[in-house]
């Protein structure tokens, strides 16, 4: 029968966890108590058995399963786009937002050079050219008898206002408008569209010099009457 008072201390002493201040007392007691020495021996043996668990190796298969479980449950890493794609996306968003805003019938379009305004009609340019550049004919706006309009949605005939609102492009817009640079880019987009559809002969005004061919992006919007065309420059920017 061991001395119960020393049991818990011996259980700490066996692995060196006993506070230093208590060690001399325990060691002194051990010298005179064989039962406690037996207890200590038993504790050493069970600690050695515990060490068997410590030494038991983990199989590579078991570890591989952990890695696979972690990988399969991990949320997807954020996709990293190259910077130029961010520039394209940003520019696209900006121009698209501006174009949609301009296409809204209550907004007056900014002044656009006449050369950029074209329609298959023999009538004078009826509407906001920038709005027209980004609008598609709806069923409500079927061509009038006096207008021969190609059905190709990318054709010049699509470049007209959604509503027969009278616009005077010579009058400055009373509402906030695009900067001259943005307006010029929109005009270039209109020109690019006309070149794609090969209807130059329908234009009433000669077109500016042909810029170097670059891709044009066509964006369909939620509104079927609004289609956005955006031209990329050779650097992939706006």
């Amino acid at each position: 029968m061991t001395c119960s008072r020393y049991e818990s201390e011996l259980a700490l002493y066996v692995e060196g966890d006993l506070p230093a201040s208590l060690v001399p007392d325990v060691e002194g007691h051990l010298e005179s108590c064989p039962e406690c020495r037996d207890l200590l021996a038993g504790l050493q043996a069970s600690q050695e058995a515990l060490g068997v668990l410590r030494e038991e190796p983990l199989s590579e298969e078991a570890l591989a399963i952990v890695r696979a479980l972690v990988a399969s449950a991990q949320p997807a890493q954020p996709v990293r786009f190259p910077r130029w794609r961010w520039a394209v996306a940003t520019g696209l968003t900006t121009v698209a937002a501006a174009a949609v805003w301009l296409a809204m019938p209550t907004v007056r379009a900014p002044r656009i050079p006449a050369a950029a305004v074209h329609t298959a009609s023999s009538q004078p340019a009826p509407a906001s050219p920038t709005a027209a550049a980004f609008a598609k004919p709806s069923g409500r706006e079927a061509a009038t008898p006096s207008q021969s309009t190609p059905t190709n949605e990318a054709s010049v005939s699509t470049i007209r206002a959604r509503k027969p609102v009278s616009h005077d492009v010579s009058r400055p817009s009373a509402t906030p408008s695009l900067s001259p640079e943005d307006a010029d880019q929109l005009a270039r987009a209109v020109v690019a569209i006309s070149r794609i559809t090969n209807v130059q002969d329908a234009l009433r005004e000669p077109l500016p010099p042909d810029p170097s061919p670059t891709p044009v992006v066509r964006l369909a919007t939620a509104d079927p009457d609004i289609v956005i065309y955006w031209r990329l420059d050779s650097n992939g920017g706006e």
Partner: protein
Amino acid sequence: MTPTKGPQASSDTAVEATGWIRRARAGDGEAFAVLVERHERMVLRTGLRLLGRLDLAQDAAQETFLRLHRYLARFDESRELGPWLYRVAVNVCRDMGRRQPPTRVLGLDEVRDVESPGSEAAALDEAVTLDRQRQVVQAALLTLPPKEREAIVLRDIEGLNTSEVARILGSSEGTVRSQISTGRLKIKRYVEAHGGLRR
């Protein structure tokens, strides 16, 4: 008898570890995989000793590393990752233990003795004895209340000192020593009663 330091990752320099953490935090999947690889043994081993089953320990390890992935952005990289992972692993195992109590380990009468012929008997007997001893000691661990089991696993199997164990468990050193002392005495009695000691 008990190692002074168990975690594999303790061999990494602090600078290296911080570098991996920063890269993982920035979204580098490979860096995170390195962190997993460097700590997977200690996490899996801890889970295995606390839960008693490899499949549960693997689930616990998965959850531990997923929590690391979620909270990496908030992790103070001036701290060591090992103790943090221990704490998370212990908490995960506690939660799992509440949902599913530790599995009963096979009793000794259910473990078949292997009759080994010839001169290779000694090595085979040794392996069998070792295997039986592991089973007995693991069974002894599972009889402990969770807090004593956690203290014993962290101290006697993972080799952390009582101060580190106290920090991980959120207890005082005195409490940890008391849990360790009681746990060791219980293990000794169980192992002696079930013939798990090799003398």
